[in-house]
């Protein structure tokens, strides 16, 4: 599974962090960092993160 975040859309809302904390985090500066190739066991969480992103910046490939 590959996670792609359109950083031109991302506005650091952090909703993805609540949905998939093992994949997405906000750094101390409030900006997003994420694991682009997470374990497939986390697929449901990542799908949820993509759903709740206010800017719809997250897509899941593969």
């Amino acid at each position: 599974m590959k996670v792609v975040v359109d950083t031109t859309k991302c506005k650091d809302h952090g909703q993805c962090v609540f949905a998939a904390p093992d994949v997405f985090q906000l750094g101390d500066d409030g900006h997003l960092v994420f694991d682009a190739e997470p374990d497939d066991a986390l697929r449901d969480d990542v799908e949820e993160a993509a759903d709740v992103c206010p800017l719809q910046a997250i897509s899941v490939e593969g």
Partner: protein
Amino acid sequence: MNRRVVVAGASLGGLRAAEQMRAAGWTEAVTVIGDEPHMPYNRPPLSKEVLAGRASFESLAFTPKASAADVEWRLGASVTAARLADRVVELDDGSTIPFDGLVVATGMRPRRLRCAGPLAGRHTVRTLADARSLRDELTRSDARVVVVGAGFIGCEVAATAIGLGVRDVTVVDPLPLPMVGPLGELLAGSLLERHRERGVRFALGRTVRHFTGTDRVTGVVLDDGTELPADVVVESVGSVANTEWLDGNGLDLSDGVLTDDFLRVGGLPHVVAVGDVARFPNARYDDVPRRVEHWSIPTDTAKHAAKSLVAHLTGTGAELAPFAPLPTFWSDQHKFRLQSFGAPVLGRDDVRVLDGDPAGDVLVGYHRDDRLVGVVALGGPATAAKTARYRAELLKQPAPTA
């Protein structure tokens, strides 16, 4: 593929309902009907990034999940009537579609001011077409803008207009502070100062008496007789539920569609409602059904409603917990963000600063019976991120009784 679920409404709620029907195990037909000509798109940027020209209109389209690839879309068509007992909907072209399950996802439309005056030059912000025509007028040089209504959309549009270089922006509202309903006085006062510092003018405690102009609007006359010259008026004065098509079925449609704890409508297991048209009880707070117009609600309601509907249609009789979402909203205005979790509106009488200063970055807690029921951050992204700790606390709480 003999049986069919009809989803009436093709915005975020309709899309998520279709996707969640698949996720919940429904393998038969799904038909989504929407009156706009577009596939579902994301509305919040219409008053912000898209209106400001920082994002394209095309960038708003949602990407439906692969599981929903075989969903049938009937776009540019509206549902004009439903006969729930007969399980059939009627469309504006006179055709009918029979259904086994129905999802009500027809959403809201902007409320309009009914006072006298010309219509041309007066805008609402709900659809792509609305935002396009407003952007065209805001980007003309020296436009004078009056925004009626200091809620989410009104405040965002005022901020966006200032960002576009509009020099003359006035917000009118009958209440004494902007967004005081959702935020309470402390943050609403802070919000007012931030807007004023950036050049937004306010006429608060005022209502609109009428509009001036013959072919198009030239001014807004307030209840104290003041006339605000205006080339562009934005009406952001709340919304009206699109439920007329459900008339005649014996439903409670007094403010949206009343549902039970499982988003079922009228006690019918084959009819559910999602999104901001649904008036549902939230088991986390009390048993008072409310409509919620926040962006997170279409997705939250669709997940629960689809499970409820699929359990009925497939006869699995799965035990569902009552619907108990944790509400959340945000708003971006000028360079700052409002971020909320929980239900601040239930705790507006006991507001405490948890972190920071109302003049700068601030985090505020709302309490009921001495317990935290909501938090709102106002400031930069790092402040918004500070809500995370309190969100966890709000989630852990058992659903309190009223």
